[in-house]
């Protein structure tokens, strides 16, 4: 163990961690939003909407995140959309998480017993109202844990952004290793940083779950 390197690396890695937190916060925000919108859309009565969402989810689940990151970073410029590596990273992570969260939301909504939907129809509620006022609120508690899982996967996946040279936690560590060649110490430190970050998220989720009402 090279303690001198470790202690001098900690602030450098903290800069990377901060970038990871920023990117992940944005991706969590956009990805969750996208996932909820797609999830609500996936139970729409309009078949073209359902099919389009199904196709999207299929693509996201059927291809590796690394490839999706490359696609966003290298393929979007071809159609005239130029994003720097930072925003390309945020976008790729958001699109990926959105697809998975869509499925979680859809499953949560479908798990509410059909009788309540019939009762809501019988008092004249429209399908969109039933979704918003009856089904969605009741599915929240059940989908919180699986969504947290997905967000943890997102944070871990953000390490892959190092391949398009986003200066986040993993990339920051790799830079130190390239100079000092102390892979064991640095990767251990990186692991610790991720662990703390993810534990904080998991703790937050448990707290929210306790706050949500049961019925």
């Amino acid at each position, binding site marked *: 163990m090279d303690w001198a390197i470790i202690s001098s690396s900690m602030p450098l890695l903290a800069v990377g961690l901060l970038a990871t937190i920023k990117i992940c916060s944005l991706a969590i925000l956009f990805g969750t939003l996208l996932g909820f919108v797609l999830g609500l859309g996936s139970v729409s009565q309009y078949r073209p909407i359902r099919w389009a969402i199904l196709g999207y989810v299929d693509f996201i689940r059927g291809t590796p995140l690394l490839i999706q990151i490359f696609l966003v970073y290298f393929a979007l410029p071809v159609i005239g959309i130029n994003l720097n590596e930072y925003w390309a990273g945020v976008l790729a992570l958001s699109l990926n998480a959105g697809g998975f969260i869509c499925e979680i939301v859809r499953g949560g909504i479908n798990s509410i017993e059909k009788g309540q939907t019939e*009762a809501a129809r019988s008092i004249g509620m429209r399908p969109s*109202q039933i979704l918003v006022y009856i089904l969605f609120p009741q599915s929240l508690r059940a989908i919180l844990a699986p969504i947290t899982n997905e967000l943890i996967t997102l944070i871990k996946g953000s390490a892959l952004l190092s391949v398009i040279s986003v200066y986040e936690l993993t990339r920051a560590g790799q830079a130190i290793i390239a100079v000092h060649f102390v892979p064991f110490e640095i990767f251990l430190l990186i692991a610790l940083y991720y662990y703390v970050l993810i534990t904080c998220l998991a703790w937050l989720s448990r707290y929210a779950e306790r706050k949500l009402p049961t019925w």
Partner: protein
Amino acid sequence: MTNLLQIENLHKQYAGRTVLSDVSLSVKTNETLVLIGPSGSGKTTLLRCVNYLETPNSGIITLDGERLGASSTGQRLPENMLAAQRQRIGFVFQRFNLFAHLSAIENVAIGPQKVLGLTRQEAHARAAHELERVHLGTHMDKRPNQLSGGQQQRVAIARALAMRPKILLFDEPTSALDPELVQEVLEVMQALSVEGMTMMVVTHEMQFARDVAHRVIFMDAGAIVEQGSPKDLFINPQHERTKQFLIHLKG
């Protein structure tokens, strides 16, 4: 008295099996019509067709002269138009189907507020009034899982009433209840009948049919076998199948 609800030549099939065959009937304003018959005779399906929770294969249903569920050419209406029609038809389910995340008063108020466009205050005032009417004034803030089956069913009745429907449909409203809770629900229904609510009730409670119904219809195998006043039908049934059914009930 005029015909409020008119059903003509209703057919319904599931996967090739006929559930309703050529059913025609009418319900007059202020009338309490009770449907009886063995399980699988199509009573529930008939009720569900009236507010298009089930789509009939053919036939015409009209409420107050307006055709329900389908256009004049027989095309099923889009869901949002069906929703508008269902506001005027109350439905009480066998398994109550209360909204589990809402308190009793919110269960009743949500329809008037979101569908009829009342303000939150108006909707809650109306809901409170309807809950008083079904003797639940002291349970308004409880959630469904804090209420007994009988109380839940009375909330469900209040929820339907709060929409001020023209007709109220009951689908075996006491079948899922513990025996000691049946009476409190039947009493509420009887009071509604006396007040002049137009009601169509599917039930196995023969005492209720005898005491409350203005007219009783006996159904078997997807068709109406006979109908008449409770007196005629229970004391002097004309058809063999009706006699058999009534004998079996007495055990």
